[in-house]
């Protein structure tokens, strides 16, 4: 593989849902590249299409339009058999460790399952399977005595370790992490995040890290993509975003991060209004209704993503002129 070629290229990805009241634009025109070994954080409020985007990339939901190139192969054009081969290399970690694991399978069965489905190890080769399962359990920090435990006997942190182990079993290159820690206690969040970082280094993984927790994403990502109502509003390096947010929405979002110091007065930028409906959205900037800087031009035409600084993309016609 060419070193300079991105592992994942998402081009104009769209996912629309037909609802009785109109077309719901869950993901609208998302484009980005993701290089091997890097982590792209995707942030945005609930319902902005982050998870749908992750699922559309993996084709767990069929994208309406656009292309997803994985290692140069167009995922959206694959037939069933090619897709099954590709699935070996792209995996997903789910948000809710209580819902994402089959309650009828033991820890080892859950971890072996992808190996059996993908025919990596023959399903009659019990010793081979068990050896591999123990290896992975060790990798994700699950004690070997839990090998025959059922998920209902374990706590959230351990279950999430099973979920991670299951994703790692096939030795994938790319993992979509769909809010992997938001269902966990804060103390366990840190453990799981550290684990994920360790395995990323060990196995050279590439993450698409979906979250609504900005402090997590700052700590975790190389690049950050901010979404609002299915559209990209800003994308740049993690440090750059926190130092110099350019889109008014990002600014408001960052100002809402709690500061762990009682003497610091937070300067929140309050957002007025509600998240507008993603069903049949108006042309122009979707954030305009809530934006303190909005003018008429904002609602007239679609706002393109502009590269204001090298690697810093913003979808706002006033970006650059606004106070930072």
């Amino acid at each position, binding site marked *: 593989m060419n070193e300079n070629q991105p592992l994942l290229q998402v081009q104009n990805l769209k996912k629309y849902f037909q609802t009785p009241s109109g077309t719901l634009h869950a993901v609208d025109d998302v484009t980005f590249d993701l290089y091997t070994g890097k982590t792209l954080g995707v942030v945005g409020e609930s319902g902005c299409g982050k998870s749908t985007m992750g*699922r559309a990339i*993996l084709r*767990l939901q069929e994208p309406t339009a656009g292309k997803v190139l994985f290692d140069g192969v167009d995922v959206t054009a694959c037939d069933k058999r090619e*897709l*099954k*081969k590709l*699935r*070996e290399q792209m*995996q*997903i970690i*789910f*948000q*809710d460790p209580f*819902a*994402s*694991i*089959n*309650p*009828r399978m*033991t820890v080892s069965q859950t971890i072996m*399952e*992808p190996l059996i*489905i*993908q025919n990596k190890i023959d399903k009659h080769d019990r010793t081979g399977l068990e050896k591999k399962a123990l290896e992975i359990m060790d990798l994700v920090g699950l004690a070997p*005595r*839990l*090998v*025959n*435990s*059922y998920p*209902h*006997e374990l706590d959230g942190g351990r279950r999430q370790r099973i*979920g991670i182990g*299951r994703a790692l079993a*096939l030795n994938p290159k790319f993992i979509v992490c769909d809010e992997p820690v938001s269902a966990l206690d804060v103390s366990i969040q840190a453990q799981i995040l550290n684990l994920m970082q360790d395995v990323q280094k060990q196995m050279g993984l590439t993450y698409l890290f979906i979250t609504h927790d900005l402090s997590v994403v700052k700590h975790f990502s190389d690049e950050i993509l901010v979404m609002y109502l299915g559209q990209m509003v800003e994308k740049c390096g993690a440090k750059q975003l926190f130092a110099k947010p350019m889109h008014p929405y990002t600014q408001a979002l960052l100002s809402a991060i709690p500061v762990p110091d009682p003497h610091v007065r937070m300067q929140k930028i309050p957002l007025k209004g509600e998240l507008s409906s993603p069903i049949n959205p108006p042309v122009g900037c979707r954030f305009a209704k809530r934006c303190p800087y909005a003018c008429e031009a904002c609602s007239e035409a679609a706002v393109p993503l502009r590269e204001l600084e090298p690697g810093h993309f913003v979808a706002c016609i006033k970006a650059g002129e606004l106070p930072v």
Partner: protein
Amino acid sequence: MKKQAAAASGKARSLGADAWYRFKKNRLAVISLIFLCLMIVIAFSTFIIDWATDSSFYDAKVIAQDLRRRLEPPSWEHPFGLDEFGRDMLLRIIWGARYSLFMGMAAVFGATLLGGFLGAISGYYKTADGIIMRVMDILLAVPTILLATAIVAAFGTSKVNLIMAILISQTPTFARVVRASVLTVKEQEYIEAAKAMGASDMHIIIKYIIPNSLSPLIVQCTMSVASAILSIASLSFIGLGIQAPMPEWGAMLSNARTYIRDSWHITVIPGAAIMVTILMLNIIGDGLRDALDPRLKN
């Protein structure tokens, strides 16, 4: 306590074993289960006796009439007394168990397979859902006994037709139960996880959907055997089921009702047999429901 010990020792208990553990704590259900098993063994042994004696025992003791001793009340020699043709009631009850139990079970087994299959298909594939469930709704709209009566009346009275009639009238219930639980399970994230691994539809249905939607089906089964037995008895009572001289409980009840003023035992005994069997099945069903319901778990 036991559970913690099991978890600490590294021994796992599957959800099924967990359910069995909870079921065992329900004493009434366990007693019912033991009695039911005993009844099944006794009913099954009648087949062996018939086979070993080439039905001569059946002909001589269960069917043969002795009109001089008709309607004799219970005694040491005949604990359940003799019926209106002087036949031993105990033997007739024992021989009758096989019709009620095994035909009821066969009908429910068939209905489970058919209804389960139809329900799983309509739950998993949206396109088939409308058609299958509308047909089920039509069947469900007709009362069970009426539907079974119509089927038996149309195809004639035979054991196979009787089973078929009950099977068809029970199928919609099973289809509904299975469809509902498949719909719930289908939306779970672990199904999506399996898809992300590249699992085929068949694999997902067999390894993920069926095991996780089984518990309501098991409960429905036990309850349905009870109602199937009742249906068989009812159809026999109105003359559309098992025909004389075969000792079916419902038919016995039907024939005996003429003598209810003079000889209570020949009416009460088959009635009690039906009642006890159904009661046991319902208690077992309730016990299973409590044991399999994850919400009651602590």
